[in-house]
């Protein structure tokens, strides 16, 4: 069945006969059976992906009109269909705040890990980063709730953005660290050999070389943050209306989906599906884009 046994059977050498596997023997049937089982595992794994995407497309697309992007969320049972304009803006604002905090933070930390590391400290930091990326996102919301919401800002876009920053941080550190390590050592030597300082080498030579991979990491982090709900219900809450400052509760697409998912009102449920479609599209596009971008390497 396998290409291996077919190759054997092409040699009708008398001595080789004993070690030739026969087609249809119990052994080769077992081989086929296992292959089929493994293939079925793959098919089963892919079924939910298609079902989720198909449902979100079908349910969401009918409601994806101009009003969805320009109006505010509708009250229940109103004739006004409404939209998620303020939620879309809220998601963009908070993801931007998250990126503004986590990118410089994460990239600088990764530069230390990849460029200056020696001894045990970087090992522990990498370990802690990996563990941090496994901390449930809801606890990051709780953390920011205790750190910023209670003592300072109240439920706000800043707190929401900070929670998303904690979520994005380990992703950015890890991808930047990995992409800096891929830059060949010879490039650094060449730069230092030309008389550049370490600072110049990192900033002018190594970072630009790693930039596409770093951008990919950022894209993945943004995609992850855009769909996150749990940390936001502790930090940003939700708002029915436009929010005009960064210190009051603010709407987001994911919390809108959560709030409207199980309500008995048709107009709000339809909007939940449409918002889901936007979230899924963001995630699919960024994933495919980042996959495409990593193909091009500088070195």
């Amino acid at each position: 069945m396998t290409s291996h046994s077919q190759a054997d059977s092409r040699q009708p050498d008398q001595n080789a006969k004993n070690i030739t596997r026969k087609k249809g023997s119990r052994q080769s049937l077992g081989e086929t059976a296992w292959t089929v089982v493994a293939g079925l595992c793959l098919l089963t794994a892919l079924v939910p992906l298609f079902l989720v995407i198909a449902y979100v497309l079908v349910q969401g697309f009918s409601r994806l009109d101009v009003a969805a992007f320009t109006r505010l969320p509708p009250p229940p049972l109103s004739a006004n269909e409404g939209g998620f304009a303020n939620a879309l803006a809220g998601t963009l604002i908070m993801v931007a705040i998250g990126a503004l905090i986590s990118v410089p933070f994460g990239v600088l930390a990764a530069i230390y890990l990849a460029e200056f590391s020696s001894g045990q400290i970087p090992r522990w930091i990498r370990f802690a980063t990996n563990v941090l990326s496994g901390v449930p996102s809801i606890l990051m919301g709780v953390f920011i709730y205790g750190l910023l919401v209670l003592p300072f800002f109240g439920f706000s876009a800043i707190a929401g953005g900070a929670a998303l920053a904690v979520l994005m941080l380990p992703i950015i550190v890890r991808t930047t660290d990995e992409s800096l390590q891929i830059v060949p050592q010879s490039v650094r030597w060449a730069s230092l050999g030309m008389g550049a300082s370490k600072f110049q080498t990192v900033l002018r030579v190594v970072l630009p070389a790693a930039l596409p991979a770093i951008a990919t990491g950022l894209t993945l982090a943004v995609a992850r943050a855009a769909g996150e709900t749990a940390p936001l219900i502790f930090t940003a809450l939700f708002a029915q209306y436009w929010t005009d400052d960064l210190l009051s509760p603010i709407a987001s697409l994911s919390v809108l989906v959560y709030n409207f998912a199980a309500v008995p009102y048709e107009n709000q449920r339809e909007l939940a599906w449409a918002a889901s479609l936007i979230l899924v599209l963001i995630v699919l596009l960024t994933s495919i884009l980042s996959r495409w971008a990593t193909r091009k390497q500088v070195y």
Partner: protein
Amino acid sequence: MTAPAYNDSSQAAIPARSGQSKWLDRGFRIVTQGFALAVAAVLVIIGIQVTINAWPAIREFGLSFIYTSAWNPVESVYGALPMIYGTLVSSFIALLLAFPLGVGTAIFLSEDFLPAKIRTPLAFMVELLAAIPSVVYGLWGIYVLIPFLKPIGGWLHDTLGWFPLFRTDYIGPGMLPAGIILTVMILPVITAISRDSLTSLPPSLRQASMGMGATRWTTIFRVLIPAGISGIIGGTMLALGRALGETMAVTLLIGNSNNFNISILAPANTIASLMANQFAEASGLQVAALMYAGLVLFLMTLIVNVLAELIIRKLKPY
């Protein structure tokens, strides 16, 4: 680090590095080190922060919080046993289903059953499962998965109703749909890490096994899986950590019942969904109790994730 200083007179044209440049280098190193240490510190501060917020409840209930099952905001008595049970059981259901599916998928995608041109996009699609937002899985689960599971749940109750796990009738939201949605969400984690560890094995292992006359599947079961076991187990542990802390999809599907019920067909609750549900309306001791539950969740995921990291690092034979 620093450019070599040339004392040779023929090299005198190269000026020594200025003090400013040296200070810049040193300062840069210190700044980056500070940020790197801060990343690690975030993990510690999360733990401290949650503990501080939970302190009133810790003082009030002590360890009894973990093994009592009253969740009564009216009388200010809190016990998290039903949620701890729900967290563990829903994650266990997910592992039970996702482990064989994930490892099978990983094997299928790491061997050359399909040409590489088809295999790579398929692996990418499995990874996309991890990218879909949790709340979208929740929405989908309410309208598609729960109705779909109705006949299966009904059949489980009718034929195996004598068994405590299937004692109650399937009413919709409950442990079973939550476990299934978690299966879908952790499957890509197990698959991706198992596949990585299988494909990174040295080719000589496979060649040696084939050369000894082993069939493909004998090679897989006796040589490749034992060699890649650290990645498979580590990936499964990471997936478990993810399942324990997953919030939105579970909250929308589990039914959020704070009463202890052993049946997986009945509504239940997890620590994460308890927090997501009650936090907005909570005040006083209830907030502390929710934080205490969060601390329990933090410690559970911390242990699982640390073990996963150690397994992936330490058990690497090749």
